[in-house]
């Protein structure tokens, strides 16, 4: 006797929600645990934030920003601060590009026979430079270089050296090896091989990395002054500390304008270059 086939396709249970072999499940569980543990361990004071009191003091704080101080002498001071911020970011980036290129050479294996003895050590140094944020560098440098834009510039340069050095090293290692090999086979010296074969190939890439970092550094330089390292941030923390709210509002406005201008410029430039 034959069994008639089921009218419906074989009934199957949906896959279980949690399966011990499913890596994504373990990962999601760990993530949920991390989030819950974070909120639980921080004992955030939402009550204080969402209370009527906080709303009122927030409102008062916001109202004090108006009217912003627009007296000519203060505007001149803000303009000087803005120029200082721009100069810090530009000089810091130039120094970092030079330092990054210098460190990228020992950090990269330029051809297959290159033993690159300092590669590991230099990469470790670059990682350490990169891991420490600009603001921490600025805090450390204040001790050696004193208050002012000089320590801010050095701090930007140090952090960006780490970032650019690593990117440059990757670019150098990924450059097509043909031209350099041809020159080396002719017995050309190392510096000349680098200057005439490797560098011209990667130069556009290095420049675009550097410009990208400059854009980041303008934003960073605007707030670096909060620890006393010059630029708009120093004006901001100074006037906020003294509760000069009108002046603080002007500085904040200048900061936002600067960031927006940089964003618009880089967006326009990218559109123009990829057109």
């Amino acid at each position, binding site marked *: 006797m034959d069994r008639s086939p089921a009218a419906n396709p074989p009934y199957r249970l949906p896959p279980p929600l949690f399966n011990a072999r499913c890596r994504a499940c373990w990962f999601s569980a760990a993530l949920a645990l991390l989030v819950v543990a974070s*909120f639980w*361990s*921080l004992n955030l004071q939402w009550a204080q934030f969402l209370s009527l009191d906080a709303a009122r003091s927030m409102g008062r704080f916001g109202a004090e920003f108006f009217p912003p101080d627009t007296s000519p002498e203060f505007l001149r001071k803000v303009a000087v601060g803005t120029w200082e911020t721009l100069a810090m970011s530009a000089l810091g980036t130039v120094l970092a590009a030079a330092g990054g290129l210098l460190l990228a050479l020992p950090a990269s294996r330029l051809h297959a026979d290159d033993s690159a003895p300092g590669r590991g050590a230099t990469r470790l140094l670059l990682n350490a430079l990169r891991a420490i944020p600009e603001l921490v560098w600025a805090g450390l440098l204040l001790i050696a270089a004193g208050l002012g834009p000089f320590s801010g*510039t050095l701090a930007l340069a140090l952090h960006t050296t780490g970032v650019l050095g690593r990117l440059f090293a990757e670019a150098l290692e990924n450059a097509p090896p043909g031209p350099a090999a041809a020159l080396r086979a002719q017995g050309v010296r190392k510096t000349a091989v680098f200057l005439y074969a490797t560098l011209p190939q990667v130069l556009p890439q290095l420049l675009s990395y550097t410009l990208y970092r400059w854009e980041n550094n303008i934003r960073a330089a605007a707030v670096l002054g909060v620890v006393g390292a010059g630029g708009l941030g120093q004006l901001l923390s100074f006037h906020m500390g003294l509760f000069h709210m009108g002046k603080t509002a002007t500085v904040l406005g200048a900061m936002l304008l600067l960031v927006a201008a940089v964003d618009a410029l880089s967006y326009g430039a990218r559109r123009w270059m990829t057109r």
Partner: protein
Amino acid sequence: MELAPRAPLKAPVTAPDRDPAWLARVFWLGASLVLLWPLMVATEFRPWILVEPANLKVTGQFLATFLPPAHSPEFLAMVARESWRTVAIATAGMTLALVIALPLTLLSTRALSVSALSGRMARGPFWLRQAVRGLLIVLRSVPELVWALVFVRVVGLGPTSGVLAIALTYGGMLGKVYGEILESGDVHATQTLLRNGSSRLQAFFFGLLPQNAAELTSYTVYRWECAIRSSVVLGFVGAGGLGQEMDNSMKMFHGGEVFTMLAVFVALVALADRVSAGLRKSLG
């Protein structure tokens, strides 16, 4: 018949010893120094003050206290606690940033517009989307440090200010980039769903999200890594965590403690880097 005198044999060609373009290189180096001069004036760029005897003495004293690094059990326990707080501030901030970014992304993405299916988007939805984009830009362009300064002033020191600062700035960033990712992909499947009468949310969950899930996740993980770095920085203005302890130790010239915390911090960042690289790789 006489043969013409033969030309003398040329000397074998060898690579020149000097760099043939050295003059141009020196010129451009000099020119860029001249161009950089006003910047150096503006930033008070005087490297020699680093080696002035008075400064050198202070720096030397500070550096000398770096060794041995502080390693008493109480101190190490404190460092472990504060490192966890740093990670927790970053994670909580990212969670709230997602809560801000997801609805705003859904509101602002053009791929989910019903009226745009037939020609131009209607005026109302168009301006709504522009307004949401404007809000995202404002959130994003205030640096998190400035948000933190404001919150610390209003409600006092503590991790709440740090969490909120990260949430607001990163919410803006995530919202903008999510929108770009969703619009840059192929919207054909989504539009087909919408044309056949599915709701916007259905079109999102069954069309847009599966297509872009890997890219969205990998960007989120990358931002989490950045949030850890900025939560240390926020500690410097009083939002708690490793940054605040580092600031205190620096101000008291306790070099050994600074050294230990810097080392822990570098290790923490390297670990986050490794985790995020591994995750992004497995997402493909």
